[in-house]
């Protein structure tokens, strides 16, 4: 049997060429040259749980605990006999992908008798069309299973493709629009190829044609789910533990079409409850902060697990100001990537300063570092260059904040809450733009604070 771990980023073979971040530098880690430092500060790159271990820092203590650990426990305790559908969300750049990869590693570290088979699906190729629905996901899951070539599942999937799915689709060709007729009549015998054709059509055809195909696939969604379930059963028969399907990056589905996204998450994805597996899906944060947020619990039996920012500022009720533990943890994240003593005049103090100003956003901290480093041709990086790096990001963030928000932001900074008169739309915009950040200190209720770079701006109202 193949190993029960799959680590897939994207569906194209091109992505397999992707090197973990720590393997892209020439020198030692943490970086001792400015060139390596810039490479390790790329905020677009999630960490690989194994290869990038040297860069990882345990942040649970400053994020209100290991929230994904609850998901692991759930899977462990429900076991193979049950199924579940769980949602994970968080701010942009909060490290969702990194944490999901870690969740996968945690699941695979469970005792052998409960160790699950984990399939990870990167939904990015699906959501790129900004028009995704249940049928796209079902096709992608089928394809994913076939690509993984799990020995026990392959014969089932092949048989179902030929007997049920392909036959059903071919029978629908008569009377279908012309483009569909061509597609359905020429579906390849090899299931993987056939599903690739369907997936490509769902991604690349014009909207109307996608809709027509989706409608057709919708009428056979129970066939697709039944097929997946038979394959899942086979996997479970041959392995001890349950099957866990992790669908990452689905939360990126376009926020500009909110009603469509709500419908997908709150209505259509319910069909995935029928799968005999534990399904973990990323959800957009804006859904959590809308009236739809409560519907998650009602529809799925549990709420959404939110990954908060690293807590670099304390609640006002606890005195406010910087949280030394959070700042130190963030500084450690940066110090794992950059050798501050070698590259910066002020050494680790720079890491502390940037961490406090980042608001707990690792991406923002890395961006400020990059800005400082690229101010100079040669090390050591001076305090002036650090100021420039900070100011650049500050100006960038500040430009996105309308003056009309300033009074509300001052109130949030004072009370750690959104004022009652602040509309849900504005709240979502503030959170989506990382103008307001959500923190956890171990209690169930989160608290909010304004990004430190905004608080420091001359436009922010002083108390």
């Amino acid at each position, binding site marked *: 049997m193949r190993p029960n771990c799959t680590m897939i980023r994207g569906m194209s073979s*091109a992505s397999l060429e992707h090197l973990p971040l720590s393997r892209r530098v020439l020198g030692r880690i943490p970086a001792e040259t400015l060139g390596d430092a810039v490479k390790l500060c790329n905020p677009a790159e999630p960490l690989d749980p194994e290869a990038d271990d040297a860069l990882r820092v345990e942040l649970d203590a400053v994020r209100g605990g290991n929230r994904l650990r609850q998901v692991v426990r759930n899977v462990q305790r429900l076991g193979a006999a049950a199924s579940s559908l769980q949602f994970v969300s968080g701010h942009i750049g909060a490290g969702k992908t990194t944490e999901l990869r870690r969740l996968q590693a945690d699941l695979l570290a469970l005792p052998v008798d409960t160790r699950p088979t984990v399939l990870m699906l990167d939904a990015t190729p699906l959501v790129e069309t900004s028009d995704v629905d249940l049928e796209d996901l079902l096709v992608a899951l089928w394809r994913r299973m076939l690509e993984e070539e799990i020995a026990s599942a392959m014969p089932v999937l092949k048989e179902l493709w030929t007997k049920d799915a392909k036959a059903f689709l071919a029978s629908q060709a008569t009377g279908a629009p012309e483009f569909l007729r061509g597609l359905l009549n020429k579906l390849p015998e090899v299931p993987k190829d056939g599903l690739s054709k369907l997936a490509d059509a769902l991604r690349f055809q014009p909207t109307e044609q996608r809709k027509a195909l989706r409608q057709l696939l919708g009428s056979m969604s129970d066939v697709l789910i039944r097929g997946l379930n038979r394959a899942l059963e086979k996997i479970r028969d041959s392995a001890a533990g349950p099957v866990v399907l992790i669908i990452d990056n689905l939360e990126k589905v376009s926020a500009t079409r909110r009603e469509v996204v709500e419908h997908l998450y709150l209505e259509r994805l319910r069909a995935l409850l029928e799968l005999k597996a534990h399904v973990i899906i990323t959800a957009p944060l804006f859904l959590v902060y809308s009236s739809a947020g409560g519907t998650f619990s009602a529809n799925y039996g549990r709420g959404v697990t939110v990954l908060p920012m690293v807590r670099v500022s304390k609640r006002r009720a606890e005195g406010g100001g910087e949280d030394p533990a959070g700042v130190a943890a963030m500084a450690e994240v940066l110090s794992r990537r950059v050798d501050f003593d070698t590259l910066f005049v002020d050494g680790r103090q720079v890491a502390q300063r940037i961490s406090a100003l980042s608001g707990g956003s690792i991406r923002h901290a890395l961006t400020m570092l990059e800005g400082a480093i690229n101010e100079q041709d040669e090390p050591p990086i001076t305090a002036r260059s650090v100021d420039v790096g900070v100011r650049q990001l500050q100006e960038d963030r500040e430009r996105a904040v309308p003056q009309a928000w300033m009074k509300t932001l001052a109130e949030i900074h004072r009370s750690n809450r959104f004022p009652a008169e602040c509309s849900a739309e504005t709240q979502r915009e503030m959170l989506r733009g990382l103008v307001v950040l959500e923190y956890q200190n171990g209690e169930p209720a989160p608290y909010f604070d304004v990004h430190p770079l905004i608080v420091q701006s001359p436009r922010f109202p002083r108390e």
Partner: protein
Amino acid sequence: VRHESIAPSLARLSRLMKRTAGGFALVRVVTDDAARGAVLSTLKSLREGGQALRVLPDGAEGVSALEGTLRGVDGPCDGMVVPDADALVSFDGGRVLDGLNLARDRLSSLVRGPLVLVLSPQGDASLAARAPDLRDATLGLVRVEAGVGAAIDVPFKHLTANDVEVELSRILSSEMSDGEAVDALVLLAKRWHHASQLEPADHAERDRELTDRIAGEALRRAVRSGYVRGIANAMVVRAMSNGRRLGFEQRRQLIEDAIQRLQAIGLSADLDLLQARSSLASVLMQNGHVDEGLWLFEEEIIPAVDETFGTEDQISARSILATNLHRLGRARDAATLTLGEVVPLARRAGQTREEVRQLALGAAYLVAAARYDEAITILCDEVVPKARAAGDDIDLAFAYANLAEAVEHRGGNGDLSQALLYADFAKRLYARSGDARDVKRMDEILRRLAPAPLGNRADRRRARFSRQHF
């Protein structure tokens, strides 16, 4: 166009590109039109992984090319520059931008090098609002804003200081009345002021002294004869030509005084009054009060001119606004105004020569905004044939000079030798029309383009062709 003020930002951009070489990095370069050419030149001169970065076309074509890359059908591609990333926001309702935003974590598997988005400040703000997630995945943000557009030549035969001195002597020794002499002096001062603005700073300072001397004489005579309109006009010229010495507040005060004097003698819809207001708007725009100045132009001056005066003045008011926009580093807006409003005005009035000049100016603004392909199309398809048909050497020379610059900066295969040819044409035409100043300028451009003498057979053939035709 190189501005010293943007050199540190360009150096930062070069460092960033060098240090991210070999891997994916999303880079946003926010630049105004005045610095856009320098940014694109810098990016074109950089080599990533031994290869020059691929620069996508401007506008929808570039967006479509990027969309193809995002689909990843042909596998991963090398690093690239999107020189007109503003089009991402406007193209097809932002569909491709949404796609880029959603694919942000997958870009490193699709692009094996930097993906550089060159945006205007307005475009960057729109991108931040529509795709904040993409903005947060940016590794490098470089702002390159010159704030001031480099002087653009005008397609007119240039005055020399000697011409002005001769004309000044003629006016002063004539038997004109004080009123007539004041009007003639103000006109001469204005012409010389505009001409001197095209000169390098040190030269222009000496020219300004001459302007001030003429305007001072006009003011003295106007006061002596109690000629209020003349006093006001001379005050406006002094305010405009003494920018450094007087400072913003004093200049503003001087022009506002002039406006009050003109209003006090009962003028309202009067050309001098509108010109004074247009000078005030220009001073406001040049000193950080952009919105106030723009408002004056758009809400007061241009509507008033359109209502009361003819095509020539309508063109003039818009041209002044276009010049101001360009000086603010907004060459693209200047081009839009010139090509979208001024050229049609001239065309409707049947003023062919003015139409050609404005087309040429519009193309020059496009060159300043680094929109080389659009500029080249206008110059080749419209300006050159029309100027040639009209037999106007100055217009033709101006068109070729701009073509040389556009083609040189576009930097495609064979563009350098084409630029040499155009610059050589322009020089010969300027020489034929006796414009020594521009001949000297073209000589400098030719030296820059071909430091060594024209040597190979193809070059000699081109030079021979050029000599035969011009």
